[in-house]
């Protein structure tokens, strides 16, 4: 009837991999956040896919919650970034490493 | 099994704890605590020596009252302890379920072995708390000391492995803070070494206890139990290899605590750096926790393992005696020398225990008490020298007898006790250990007896370098002699030293039944352990030895009439060797009846 769920899952996996790779290679904190959003969306996609596959509304409910959490996370994260940028002009994640052992 | 209406053992454990809590709640003398924190914690520099604090501040009064009350209770316990032949088992047992799900009980009990360790603890603590001049925060000091006392009492009295372990570990905390808070120049290093080393040893103890409990559970109807007596009953049915491994776990943990060569290297640092009171308690009592654990957990619970490993421990002890003696001789600092000398003394304790003869084990128990008294006194006296002179290096001392004659006399008495002069306590313990060891393990005893010579060498050499000789250093010329207060503080220890040396019978009468009971267990569990038959063998003793303790005149008359002709018979054939039924059997049969 429609596209087999495996395709969606592969697509989500690729998206997740891209997001993860981006998180690891980018140094701009904002872009790192965006990569996290990519990964969250990949997960959302699998949720919806499984929801359809298993004929269960629960997957979609979870997506809803993920959306909320992602929004909250973005809000707090961006606030942190703003506070951080106030203190020092440097923008990259690598400039902050005082937790070095 | 004797019980009284008064839960006396619980009182003995909880009274110091309550005292510690009260000390904690007292308002702090803020100036002293801040100065202490500033100087010793934040910076590594030595404290600028806050002046001596009057020990009779509010905390001091609480400490004194609690410690003396505790002593009173313990004296009551010792007096109340039954001396008859039935006294081999645990007395005054108090048992309450604590953590029922794991079979953990709060159970306390005392037998002849722990009785005098408790007594010594109760005696030594007030002396250590109020003898040496205290510098620094008295509130914290009293609190830690009382906590330490409670933990030591708990360790000696516990009949539950969990309680034992908890108490055993709790002692480390006050020990650490006493060394780190009131110690010498390298106190932080010493305290850390002490804590980590012994704590690492305790890991083995923990594993051994858990292993024992878990392995014993299926044989106890599936119920886990930490009860000492139950475990001791079950442990015999465990596989042989398991028992040996469990014993090894115990042995390693306690060998570190005791400490047995080669696990001793934390000791000299700790004892040298500890404050006087800390050294007294550490050496006098904390050593004994290990030795007591070896006896109570090692030999009592897993006798098979103990019998299997006895040659190893005997060898370590004999090596420790010789090795420790050699090292002690060359020390250049009085306190360090005394610390090393302790290694030799505790090696004697271990030697006696693992000889598995009643003389050896009894001697070992006596040696534990002896060492507490002697070392407590010696560290106290060393502390006095330190306070007066500010140095303990032999090269700085010498000729002190000129300005402090009474001190020299007291010191000599204690030194002679450490050397093992008959008439003082050291000899009785040492002799019993050696004679007991000789009976079962001859060559170990022959090696260990070398300490008779070496102890004289290092102790007298030290004494000579401190008190004898011309006064070469003008600072030694006008040193204040021991004060009346200090003399009064050390007097109880001296009385104990002399009393146990001259008349150890009250002590031995209470210890021997418990030791016999213990050795019976070893004998039954490990028939190959070469336990000499203590009960059946009664040696030829003349009839007059049955007369004990009575008025001298009566005894004399009895002996004169009973055996007048035996000694000077002249005809060598008259050997009263057949008269064997009477004498030692009164005490010996005590253990047999169990």
């Amino acid at each position: 009837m429609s596209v087999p769920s495996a395709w969606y899952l592969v697509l989500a996996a690729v998206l997740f991999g891209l997001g993860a790779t981006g998180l690891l290679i980018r140094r701009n904190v904002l872009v790192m956040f965006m990569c996290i959003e990519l990964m969250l969306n990949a997960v959302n996609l699998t949720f919806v896919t499984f929801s359809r596959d298993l004929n269960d509304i629960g997957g979609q409910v979870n997506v809803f919650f993920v959306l909320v959490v992602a929004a909250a996370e973005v809000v707090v994260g961006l606030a942190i970034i703003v506070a951080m940028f106030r203190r020092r002009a440097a923008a990259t994640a690598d400039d902050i490493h005082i937790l070095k052992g | 099994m004797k019980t009284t209406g008064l839960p006396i053992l619980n009182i003995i454990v909880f009274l110091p704890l309550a005292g510690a809590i009260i000390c904690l709640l007292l308002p702090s003398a803020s100036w002293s605590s801040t100065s202490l924190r500033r100087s010793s914690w934040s910076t590594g520099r030595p404290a600028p020596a806050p002046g001596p604090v009057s020990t009779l501040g509010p905390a001091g009064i609480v400490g004194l009252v609690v410690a003396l009350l505790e002593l009173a209770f313990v004296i009551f316990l010792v007096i109340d302890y039954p001396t008859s032949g039935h006294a081999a088992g645990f007395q005054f047992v108090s048992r309450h379920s604590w953590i029922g799900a794991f079979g953990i009980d709060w159970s306390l009990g005392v037998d002849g072995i722990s009785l005098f360790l408790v007594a010594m603890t109760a005696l030594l603590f007030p002396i250590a708390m109020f003898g040496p001049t205290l510098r620094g925060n008295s509130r914290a000091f009293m609190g830690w000391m009382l906590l330490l006392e409670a933990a030591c009492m708990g360790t000696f009295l516990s009949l539950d492995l969990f309680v034992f372990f908890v108490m055993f570990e709790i002692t480390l905390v006050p020990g650490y803070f006493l060394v780190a808070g009131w110690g010498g120049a390298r106190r932080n290093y010493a305290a850390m070494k002490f804590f980590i080393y012994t704590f690492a040893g305790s890991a083995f103890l923990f594993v051994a206890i858990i292993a024992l409990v878990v392995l014993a559970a299926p044989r106890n109807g599936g119920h886990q139990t930490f009860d000492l007596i139950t475990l001791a009953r079950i442990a015999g049915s465990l596989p042989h290899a398991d028992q040996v491994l469990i014993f090894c776990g115990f042995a390693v943990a306690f060998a570190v605590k005791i400490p047995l060569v080669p696990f001793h290297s934390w000791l000299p640092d700790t004892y040298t750096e500890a404050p006087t009171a800390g050294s007294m308690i550490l050496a006098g009592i904390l050593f004994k926790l290990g030795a007591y654990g070896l006896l109570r957990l090692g030999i009592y619970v897993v006798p098979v393992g103990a019998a299997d490993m006895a040659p190893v421990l005997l060898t370590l002890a004999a090596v420790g005696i010789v090795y420790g003696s050699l090292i002690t001789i060359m020390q250049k600092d009085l306190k360090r020398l005394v610390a090393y000398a302790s290694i030799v003394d505790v090696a004697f304790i271990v030697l006696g225990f693992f000889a598995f003869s009643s003389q050896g084990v009894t001697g070992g128990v006596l040696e534990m008490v002896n060492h507490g008294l002697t070392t407590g006194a010696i560290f106290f006296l060393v502390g006095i020298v330190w306070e007066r002179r500010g140095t303990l290096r032999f090269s700085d001392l010498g000729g002190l007898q000129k300005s402090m004659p009474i001190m020299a006399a007291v010191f000599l008495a204690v030194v002679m006790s450490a050397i093992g002069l008959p008439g003082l306590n050291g000899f009785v313990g040492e002799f019993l250990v050696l004679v007991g060891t000789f009976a079962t393990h001859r060559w170990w005893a022959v090696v260990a007896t070398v300490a008779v010579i070496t102890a004289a060498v290092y102790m007298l050499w030290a004494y000579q370098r401190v008190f004898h000789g011309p006064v070469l250093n003008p600072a030694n010329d006008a040193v204040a002699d021991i004060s009346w207060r200090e003399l009064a503080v050390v007097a109880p220890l001296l009385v104990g030293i002399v009393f146990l040396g001259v008349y150890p019978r009250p002590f031995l009468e209470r210890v021997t039944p418990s030791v016999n009971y213990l050795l019976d267990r070893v004998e039954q569990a490990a028939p190959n352990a070469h336990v000499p038959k203590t009960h059946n063998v009664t040696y030829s003793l003349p009839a007059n030895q049955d007369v004990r303790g009575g008025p001298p005149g009566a005894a004399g008359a009895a002996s004169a009439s009973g055996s007048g002709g035996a000694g000077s018979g002249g005809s060598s054939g008259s050997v009263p060797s057949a008269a064997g039924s009477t004498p030692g059997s009164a005490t010996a049969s005590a253990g047999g009846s169990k």
Partner: protein
Amino acid sequence: MLAALLADSSGQALAHASAWAVFAVGAAMILTGALGVVLLRNPVHCALMLVITLFGIALEFIDQSADFLAAVQIIVYAGAVVILFLFVIMFLGVDRKEAISAEPTRFQRPLAVLLGVVALVEILALSRIDHWSAGTPSQSGALSGPGSNVQKLGQAIYTGYLLPFEMTAALLVIAVVAAVVLSRRHQPSASEMSELDQEELLSARRFTPPDQGDQS
């Protein structure tokens, strides 16, 4: 909804083809956008590419009859989150290009790529295995059946998932408060200051004339 519409009117084949078409378009948007986010240097461009991805995701949601989620996706993500990103970028003025080639740790980038690839391979390998959907049937309600998607979703959220839902509300409030606190430019009170700062402050006060000190 579109897919359902197509399926109703034109039969299986058309519905099939249209579903594939939607999927392909969505996938293309997603991948393009994701690659753009990862590879573009300018954060503003990255944010815009993120929008493309989010639209693609919304398409895939529609393709799987998650209509409400698709709407929320566009409203919340594209409408709020990305705008917030852009707002921050503009607000802070950090829209300069990032020197992607500069790396403090040598192994970071190759390892990251490698890990990404390996992870991808592993996920794909996993997806080739059929055991992954062998869970117990759900309790939260069937997806198919009568009623609209929104209705069913609402029913699930306000009945079975009520407590999590309320907790998300609390979470959002907390996040708002946190954002306010974090981004507020505050004067530290004395108790928050380090010892050094306090001493500086005290010495500064000591040397200011009394009238000025009162004002401060």
